[in-house]
């Protein structure tokens, strides 16, 4: 079969990144495959675009599974090619080198941005996905420990609470929040919820990219947004208990995207999913959002008992 790198063609139009087209039977030599910087730039740009697409998801409606799978396959394809070229290793090494420890959570930044958007919409500045998180997380606990429920939910209500962090960004490529399986798969579901929360408290890779702007096209910046920050110490022992058994090495983006982890508890979709940000446009785009925000506020009031 043809080696993958030989068949690409650059588009004529300058604004486009990698495009399709045929190159004809290009030289199969390795030299031809140590690609021109223009091609790798285009390929990198396509990778960035794809990762951002996987990140930015609709807040209230489950995103399209087909689209997510196709984008993820594209990412995988690029990553495979980059691994063959050796560029992948270079990039991950560069990222590892570019870490600066910080106490701030990436997601907190976005959380605040989202809070602004919600405030603009005239609603209470609670990220409403938190409701789903709480209800999902504590579905078991709610049933068994009614007393604990109020405490736990109250402690996680504050909008800038660090332990919410990436757990509050539910809607990933497969939809879903902490619990995107059917009811019969509850065990798996809860495990995933735990993973999501665990990311907040574990030490994962650290980066500095605190902005999730779609304009940032360099690999570092994009990959930086996936880094998990070291958070403030978790206030709730109950939550910590949930997070106790996750393998922190899993949050290596490398292993995530190549799926090389031997016994992964979360798939790449879940990781991207829990790290996803939500542009304000998703909030304000639908008028039904407001009624749902009202609805959710109402629910929160009931739960909190205010």
């Amino acid at each position: 079969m043809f080696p993958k790198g030989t068949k690409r063609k650059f588009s004529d139009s300058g604004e486009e990144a990698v495009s399709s087209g045929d190159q004809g039977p290009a030289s199969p030599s390795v030299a031809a495959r140590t690609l021109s910087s223009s091609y790798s730039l285009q390929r990198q740009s396509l990778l960035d675009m794809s990762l951002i697409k996987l990140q930015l998801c609709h807040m209230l409606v489950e995103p399209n599974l087909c689209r997510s799978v196709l984008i993820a396959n594209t990412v995988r394809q690029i990553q495979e090619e980059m691994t063959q070229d050796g560029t992948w290793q270079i990039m991950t090494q560069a990222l590892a080198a570019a870490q600066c420890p910080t106490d701030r959570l990436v997601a907190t930044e976005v959380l605040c941005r989202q809070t602004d958007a919600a405030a603009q919409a005239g609603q209470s500045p609670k990220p409403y996905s938190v409701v789903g998180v709480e209800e999902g997380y504590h579905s078991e606990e709610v049933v068994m420990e009614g007393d604990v429920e109020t405490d736990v939910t109250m402690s996680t209500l504050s909008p800038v609470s660090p332990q919410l962090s990436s757990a509050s960004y539910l809607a990933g490529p497969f939809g879903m929040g902490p619990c995107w399986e059917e009811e019969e798969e509850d065990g798996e579901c809860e495990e995933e919820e735990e993973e999501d929360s665990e990311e907040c408290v574990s030490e994962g890779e650290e980066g500095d990219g605190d902005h999730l702007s779609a304009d940032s096209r360099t690999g570092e910046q994009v990959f930086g947004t996936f880094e998990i920050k070291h958070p403030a110490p978790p206030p709730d022992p109950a939550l910590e208990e949930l997070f106790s058994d996750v393998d922190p090495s899993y949050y290596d983006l490398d292993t995530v995207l190549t799926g090389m982890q031997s016994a992964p508890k979360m798939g790449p979709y879940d990781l991207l999913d829990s790290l996803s940000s939500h542009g304000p446009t998703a909030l304000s785009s639908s008028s039904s959002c407001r009624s749902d925000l009202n609805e959710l506020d109402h629910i929160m009031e009931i739960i909190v008992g205010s």
Partner: protein
Amino acid sequence: NVSFLQFLLLTADIISTVEFNQSGELLATGDKGGRVVIFQQEQESKNKLQCRGEYNVYSTFQSHEPEFDYLKSLEIEEKINKIRWLPQKNAAHFLLSTNDKTIKLWKISERDKRPEGYNLKEEDGRYRDPNTVTTLRVPVFRPMDLMVEASPRRVFANAHTYHINSISVNSDCETYLSADDLRVNLWHLEITDRSFNIVDIKPANMEDLTEVITAAEFHPNQCNTFVYSSSKGTIRLCDMRAAALCDSHAKLFEEPEDPNNRSFFSEIISSISDVKFSHSGRYMMTRDYLSVKIWDLNMESRPVETYQVHEYLRSKLCSLYENDCIFDKFECCWNGNDSVVMTGSYNNFFRMFDRGYQQDMTLEASRENSKLRSVLKPRKVSTGGKRKKDEISVDSLDFNKKILHTAWHPLDNIIAVATTNNLYIFQDKLN
């Protein structure tokens, strides 16, 4: 060569599905707001301009409401993904309509008489004073203004974790299938609390997921046969007699990739957005992003015919990926005798391919460019450097104006074309 007359029928919420019934007398549309609007063709018109009746609104009803999944904290859209008519058995009409999660069977019936002359009630419904009732009479039916009622007869819920993309009524008229991204379920029309799972492609680990189901349909004549298409450009034909779970296909239709055209977007554009059997049952048609392919059910290795819908987009795939247009799901349809196929494109263009004459035509559905009841002019997109007069250049195409849903009358040359907000009916001009 046929010329078409255009009628504009409806300006609505975003139209999400269009379907003629088996006789062509009724045309159903579903929209993003969960509404179904049914049009009925008038009886033969005495007007000499057209020998066929016009379509007028027959019934409108709210099929699905938005729901909120509290467990996942996600909204379930009320948008109608598909409508399929059941073959008519009596005076009433039945259709299945589905959103992402729930399928409903609706009965549409006419009422043109009402009983009058009750003994205990006045005509307005008030109860009569028993003392005034001195004689007994039998109520009689009197004509009234026609009323069309739609009532939900069955609700088939809670069988799909993922979003339903297709429903298809079996030729046995007793069962139907519903397909979501990962599973296909078989239902009996009378039974709502149970369905049989007949295809399941969900991997044990969701992170291993690389392929989803995009469409499914029953064979028009063989009640044991159905097909489902995938995001990797394959179609699997399954025989329900072989096993209860049809995970292993009887036939796999797949065209080998053209190595010259390979790119990072190859897989995405090979994803099949629609699959339709021909009326004869001998062929099936698939729509992927750039082309329409006709397959002979007896040959799995490659399609027998391939038609390029908008090949000029091949060099724009990166931009179309960026603005998500590359994920648009276009549908396709056959005409009544399987000689012509039709599908939509951008800029409110739609394309027809005549299989017999090997000709194709591009038409536009637009209020501005055509007056009602005028003859449609064929369009052309200029691909080369020089743009002729009346041609449109690729860069000036409006990618927000897309025709995803089209339908062809099963017996006549009447087509229904949905732009984002408008429904157009085109009839060929009889001279």
